[in-house]
Structure formats: C-alpha cells, structure tokens
C-alpha cells in the first residue's frame, strides 16, 4: 500500500468510528478493502491503533499547551494541503482552476453556489438540483435505441421507445449499449457494464460504467454525477467514465463543462474543462489531474438497424472500403463495419462487361453490391473524356495512353489456279518481333464485292466489314467476315515461318471472283510483342503466300505479288501519339498484327502480387511503401477507381460530411525490373486524384526510386465522387507499374 493510501485508510476508519464518514467515502473504503488481503490487514491495524489509544487513555498525561495547539491548527488551516482541496498539477493555460476558499467548509455549498453562479447564471438551476432531494418519480426520458442490451434485474429491462422514470433507484446494464433521449433533447449513450440512475430531468448518476452525453441548447446544464464528481454541461459533448473503484474520468469532445470534484460533505474543487481536454478525479481524495483525451473510447451513437456503434471515429479506411467494408480507423473493436458488400479486386473488363459496353469509349464498370465503390474504369483518354462515375455526371480528360490495334490485310489473286483448289496452306515470313507473340486469328472476307480494295487507300475507317470502334479495339461485321482458323507460332524472336496449315477449303470453294481477302488479327488484348510479317514491298520473295497442292501436279504458289495481290495493315490506334485510324499503310515493308488496349483493370488491397520475368521465373512484388506495411490500395497503371463519398457519409453517424482525403503515395519499393519486359523497361507511373471528375492532384513520373509522398485533398459537403487513377507508363510493357495509395483515408467532420 502507498503511504497516502494508508493515511486515507486511517482517516476513513477514524471517521467511521466517530460516525462521520460520508457515503462516498464508505464506498471508497470498501473499494480499497476489496483490493487485497494486505489492505484488509492494514485496516485491522488502523482499528487497533484507535482501540489502543482508547485503552491507554488513563496513562496519557494531560499536559496540553493550548497555545501551541491552536497555532498548529491555524497552520494547518492556512496551508490547507491536507484539506480536500488539492491543487491540481500545472495545466495548460486554457484551464481555469478556481478553488473555494478554505474557510468555506462550514458553508461549502453556499460558497460553491456563489462561486458558480457568478460564472454562469444557468448553473443556479443545477445547484438547486444539487441541494434538493430527488423529486418524486416522473418520466423524463425515452429509450431511443439499444444494441444487445441486458439488465442485471429483468424488471429493469426496457424496450426501445419506452419512457424512463426517475426515482426508481439504480439500474445495472449488464451487456450492450443503450441510447436515451431526455425530454429536453439531451442524448445519452450508456455502455455496459454500467450502473446508472436517472435522478432528475436534468441529471443522471453513474455509479460505474461509461456515459456519453450530447447536450442541446435546451439541455444546457445537464449533469452527470459520480461518487466523487459532478459534471455540469454547458452545451457540449462529453464522456464520463466511472470506475468500480470510484475514480472518475471526464473527456470533453465539444464545448465546455464544469467539473466539480470532491467527496460528499467535503470541500469541492471547481474546474472548467474544455473541448479536447480530459481530467481524472482520484478515487481516494478526489484530486483532479489531466489525462490524455480518449477520442474513441465512448460509444457516441448507435444504430441497431445497421448494428453500428460510432465511437467518434472521423476517419474511414478506403482500403477496407475496397472490400466492401467501411472501417473506422483508430478504434479497437472497429465500429462501422459492414461486411455484406462485394469486393473489388483484379477485374478484367472484357470479362466483366457486356460486349456492347466494350465497344463504347470511356468504359466504366459499376461495382455491384459495394456501396462505397461507384465503379472502376480504364484510365485512358484515347477516346476522349471518360466517365469516372456510373451516372455519367463526372467525366475526365484522362491522358492519352498508348493503345495498339493493327490488323493485317492480305489479298491473293488465285485466277491462275484453274484446277483443284483444295488443300491450300498459308505461309507468312515473320520479319521481326521482340518477346512472345500471340496467336493470330485468320478471317476471310465474305463480301466479294469488297475484295477489290486499294492497298494505297485502305485504312481502318473504310476497310470492308470493319465498323467504328474505340481506339485499340475493333469491331468486325460478322456478316462480312468469317473466321477461318487460328495460326499459332511456337517460337519467339526472329523467325521465318514455314507454311502454316489452315483449312481454307470451304472459303476458297465459295469464292467466285478469284480474289481472296484475309484479315490477320489478335483477338485478345495483350501487351506481348507485335507480329511483323514481310510484305511484298519488304521482300517480294518472302511476301505472304498460299500453296496449292493442285492434285498430282506440282505445287502452285500464289503470293501477294501475284497478279492483283495486296498486303497491308489497318490501324485503329494512337501509335506515336497520332490518331491514325485513317492512315493507310500500303508502303510498309512489313505488315503488323497486334492488339493492345489493356483490358485488365487491376485494383487490389492485397499485400503483394505474383509475376513472372522474361525467363518465366516467378517473383513476388510486395505492395509497400518504404518500410511501413499499411492498409493500401494498389492500382495497376491504366486503372481508375471511384469512391462514393455520399454513400460513406450516409453510414457515418450524424451524417457528417467528408472533409479531407489523405494517403501516402508511391510505387512499390525495392522492386527489381531487370530481366523484365526487355532491357529498356523502366517502371514509372503517373498518379491522379479527382473529385467529381475534376483533377485535384497530379504527380508524374513516379518510379521506384521516388520517395513516397503525402497526398492531401480537401473535400466539401458538395463533393460526391472521389477518383483515384494511375496511368502514364511510357512503355506499354508494364509488369510492375503499380501505384500504391497507403493509408488511404477519408476524414469526416
């Protein structure tokens, strides 16, 4: 036991023996005694000394020096350090400490009233309550909501909507949280375990537990009383914690309160405690000391419908929102959780979207089932302003990223083949490529009238059977083109392809004008290399060819050089930053086949991702900035995501508007790009933050060497959509081009 506790114990024992101990002190004494056998033993010692002194009374010499005694008493009185009023520790200048004069003990209440009423007239009302006995039982409040509430005594159980009365004695809330509304509008949230009593229409007693009070203008003066304190509200929000041992904590979140600390029938200390401050009133001597304000320990609002408990968190983790949860930051036993919604992760637009949607520019994919994510989109402005919200209300002139759509076009003139035309095979000379090419689909033009196209003039926009499509994509008229098969090449790098067999018989049999038009294209978007096939302009001896076995005769070879043959390619892309959908390529020495518009939107809150290097070896890329491992959102270049601030705000109690978006941004640290996507690959991204389609923040050429940087975007209550996007890789090969938003948070008011 501490010395001060021993002295207190002696005091209480003396008082009890004399019949002078207060109820509060009785409670404190019991609390202290409950703390262990050592204390019980000391209690016996305290009794013993009293009894001992009584016993030795006859042998005590009655030789007092009255003068000395009086002098000593006066000294005690003046110093007053052992009196109930203990000076609090030096506090911030905002705190005003007023001590009652020491001589006021005989009329302490009166003095107290005078002291208070001089500072705020309204407190007179409270003081009236303070000195007057409890009124008769009356209805003063209503139970507005509760979550998992149970009371120690079943008779005390009340249902939502029930009227609550004073004068019924204390109630013990065993589990759960309840919310009351006093008739003057004061909202009170009580969290179990707690013992409380509605004393009057403006006061609640808290024996132990936690109470949060939100006081309206009309409810000013609302009071929470504990064993050693009274907290009088001056229009504010505050929380009171009363420990079972008798200590009291006051945490003021808004406005100002008056704290009156002191045990019953002892002198009181009066202190104004303002927003942002917290004080503890000591269990034994009611001394006041400053403590750290605990922002998130009091349940401030509850909603049984959504089963949410709000503890004052004003920060929402967007990484959690990605998984359909709205998780508050900084609270143990997180509140505001809603796990029912759908998660966003890596999405392939071509798989997720309808074919028609893919044909429209500014592709935006709403995320169903996740109320906090409005949708994801392809952050490429190649087609003009793109939608960044599902309702189309927000559009963004995103930077133009590179897309590739090159379709080879061949025409063979087979008028010289007079006999058997079956068994023909196609041969292509692959002139050059880097990396691994993808299979090439071969289509035959059914519309014979269109066969006589001009190599010099043809381009994507006027090519037969091709309809307008966003850049990087294509749209073939199925009535005009028939798929004949797919060419698969087994080798990577430069090679000469020998004749590759393709079943052309049916297509050739249907031909009537001796002209065969074939289209060569990659059907799936891919960042892999571009096929470059030698044309007649490049090397007539290696121009694309058809070999006809011609029955028993020797093979007949028809090339694009033969008669009215032709070879070229169509572009529907923006290579070299030039929109060249209408540029013909008739004089190219090779025709090109490629399809790349990045149809995979990768957005994740995972901690890492797996990738393979050029040698096919697997690696793990950890999503982290510097050394910290934090919740984050990772966007692969080309990905955009839009959060719905209104939906989030609706879930935050009291409908508080969003005020700020913050995050730490950068590329994954420590990644090795060597041996990836060719030798010249340098990971690099551009980062964008938009609000309602308007660009609010840009950071270009962010690379692994870039130190992570803080993002802070102010928001207003009018703002609805927050969009994050990552683009700008200068190279279309982007295996490690991820942008990270660590600790992405929305701060609500």
């Amino acid at each position, binding site marked *: 036991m501490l*010395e001060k506790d*021993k*002295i*207190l114990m*002696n*005091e*209480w*024992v*003396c*008082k*009890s*023996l*004399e*019949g*002078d*101990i*207060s109820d509060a002190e*009785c409670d404190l*004494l*019991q609390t202290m*005694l*409950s703390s262990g*056998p050592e204390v*019980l*033993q000391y*209690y*016996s*010692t*305290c*009794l*013993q*000394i009293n*009894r*001992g*002194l*009584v*016993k*030795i*009374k006859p042998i*005590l*010499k*009655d*030789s*007092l*020096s009255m003068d*000395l*005694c*009086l*002098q*000593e*008493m*006066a000294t*005690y*009185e003046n110093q007053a350090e*052992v*009196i*109930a009023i203990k000076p609090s520790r030096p506090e911030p200048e905002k705190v005003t400490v007023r001590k009652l004069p020491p001589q006021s*003990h*005989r009329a302490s209440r009166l003095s107290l009233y005078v002291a208070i009423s001089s500072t705020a007239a309204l407190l007179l009302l409270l003081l009236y309550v303070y000195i007057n006995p409890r009124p008769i039982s009356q209805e003063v409040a209503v139970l507005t909501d509760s979550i998992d509430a149970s009371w120690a005594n079943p008779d005390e159980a009340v249902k939502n909507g029930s009227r609550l009365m004073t004068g019924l004695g204390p109630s013990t809330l065993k589990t759960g949280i309840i919310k009351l509304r006093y008739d003057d509008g004061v909202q009170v949230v009580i969290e179990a375990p707690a013992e409380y009593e509605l004393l009057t229409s403006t006061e609640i007693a808290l024996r132990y537990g936690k109470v949060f009070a939100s006081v309206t203008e009309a409810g000013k003066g609302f009071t929470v009383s504990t064993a050693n304190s009274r907290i009088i509200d001056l229009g504010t929000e505050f929380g009171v914690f009363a420990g079972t041992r008798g200590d009291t904590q006051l945490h003021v979140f808004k406005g100002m309160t008056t704290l009156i600390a002191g045990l019953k029938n002892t*002198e009181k200390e009066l202190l104004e405690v303002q927003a942002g401050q917290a004080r503890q009133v000591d269990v034994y001597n009611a001394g006041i000391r400053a403590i750290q304000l605990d922002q998130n320990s009091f349940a401030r609002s509850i909603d049984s419908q959504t089963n949410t408990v709000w503890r004052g968190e004003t920060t929402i983790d967007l990484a959690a929102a990605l998984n359909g949860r709205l998780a508050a930051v900084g609270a143990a036993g997180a509140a505001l959780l809603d796990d029912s919604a759908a998660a966003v992760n890596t999405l392939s637009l071509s798989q997720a979207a309808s074919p028609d949607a893919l044909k429209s520019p500014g592709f935006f994919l709403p995320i169903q089932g996740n109320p906090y994510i409005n949708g994801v989109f392809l952050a490429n402005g190649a087609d003009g302003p793109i939608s960044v919200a599902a309702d189309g209300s927000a559009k963004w002139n995103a930077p133009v990223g590179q897309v590739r759509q090159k379709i080879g076009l061949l025409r063979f003139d087979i008028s010289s083949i007079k006999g058997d035309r079956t068994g023909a095979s196609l041969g292509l000379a692959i002139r050059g490529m880097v990396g691994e090419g993808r299979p090439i689909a071969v289509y035959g033009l059914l519309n014979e009238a269109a066969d006589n196209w001009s190599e010099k003039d043809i381009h994507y926009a006027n090519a037969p059977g091709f309809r307008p499509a966003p850049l990087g994509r294509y749209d073939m008229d199925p009535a005009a083109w028939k798929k004949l098969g797919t060419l698969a090449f087994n080798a990577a790098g430069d090679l000469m392809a020998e004749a590759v067999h393709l079943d052309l018989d049916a297509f050739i049999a249907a031909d009537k004008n001796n002209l065969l038009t074939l289209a060569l294209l990659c059907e799936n978007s891919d960042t892999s290399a571009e096929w470059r096939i030698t044309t007649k302009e490049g090397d007539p001896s290696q121009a694309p060819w058809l070999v006809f076995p011609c029955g028993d005769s020797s093979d007949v070879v028809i090339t694009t050089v033969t008669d009215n043959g032709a070879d070229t390619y169509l572009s529907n892309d923006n290579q070299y930053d030039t929109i060249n959908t209408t540029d013909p390529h008739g004089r190219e020495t090779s025709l090109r086949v490629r399809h790349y518009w990045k149809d995979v939107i990768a957005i994740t809150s995972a901690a890492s991702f797996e990738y393979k290097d050029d040698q096919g070896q697997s690696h793990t890329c950890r999503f982290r900035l510097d050394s910290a491992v934090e919740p984050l959102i990772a966007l692969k270049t080309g990905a955009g995501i839009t959060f719905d601030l209104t939906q989030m705000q609706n879930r935050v109690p009291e409908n508080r508007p969003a005020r700020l978006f913050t995050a730490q941004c950068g590329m994954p640290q420590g990644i090795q790009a060597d041996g990836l996507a060719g030798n010249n690959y340098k990971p690099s991204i551009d980062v964008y933050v938009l609000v309602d389609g308007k660009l609010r923040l840009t950071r270009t050429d962010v690379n692994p060497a870039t130190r992570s940087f803080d993002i802070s975007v102010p928001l207003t209550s009018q703002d609805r959509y927050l969009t994050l996007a990552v683009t700008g890789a200068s190279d279309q090969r982007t295996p490690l081009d991820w942008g990270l938003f660590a600790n992405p948070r929305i701060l609500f008011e």
Partner: protein
Amino acid sequence: MDNSDKTKLDTPKPRYEHFLRLFRTNEDRLFGFILRLLPNFTVAEDVMQETMMTMWRKFDEFKEGSSFSAWGMRIARFKVLEYHHRDRRHGMVHFNDELLDQLSDLDKGPDKIENTYLEALHGCVDKLKDQNRDIVKFRYSRDMSIKQIADELSVSVNVIYKSMSKIHYVLQKCIERTLSAWELT
C-alpha cells in the same frame, strides 16, 4: 485455540460467574471482531452488548472445552448481520457481504490488544511532536469528540481528521519499529 479459551471448572461456581469469567477473558477479542465488521464505536458497543446477551441466553449450548471466542464470534457475526438488516446508520461503513466474509476470516491477531503493544504505543505517543501529541491528548485524554475539538479550535472537522490520520500513521510505524526492536532484544 489458546489457553484463555479453555474452560476450567475447578470448583462449582454460579453459572453466570463462569460465563462472565469466560466473557471477560475474551471480551477484547470479541469487541475487536465486531469493530472490524462494524467500524463505529457506538454501534460496535451496542452490538457487543447484544452479542453478550445472546451468548448468555445460549450459554447452555456452549460446549465446554471448545473455543469460547470462536463461539462468541459466530454469534457476534450473526448479530452484525442482524444489525445490517435492521439498521443502516448514516456516517458509518456498511460492508457488503463479500467484505464481511473476508473480514470475518481475517487473521485474528490484531483483535486482542497485547500489553506490549500498548506499552509501545504509549512510548510512541510520547515521541510525537508536541503539536501532534497535543491533538492525541485532546481526543483521548480529555475525551473530546472530533467535532468538539474542531469547534473548540474553530477549524474544520476535516482538518482534525486529516491530522489525526497522519498521526495514526506515524504511530503505527513507530509501534512497528519499537516492537521489532524489542523482539530482537
């Protein structure tokens, strides 16, 4: 059980004499026990009286040779509970059941005040600073109540209690030192 508990009936005596002898022998311990459960001099004395009356009425049930004090404490405990149910006086501690149990079971040592303790206490009072010794004498020699002392000196009751609690603390430490020094010699 110590020797004082054992009944020794060498010669037939009036029964009440026998009871009183036993009671006087154990009175101090019993009162200490009651005071522990009801730490208020007035109340403890009342309950002590009631306990004594009940013990006398039930003395026939007391088994000779067993512990008189233990028997008395059982009855005293009952009386304390009776008091708790009957009367809740303001200004004194009313322990909860759990604490009453714990306090009842507490080591019985301090209940009996030994002469050595009183000697040590006396010496320690003498060693007090003058002003503190005066306060003790005010209270215990002149038998003034705390209120009377406070009124007399025009200070608050609290001042007296605060002073008293410190004095008691000082005395306890002094007694502890004195007793252990005596034990060593």
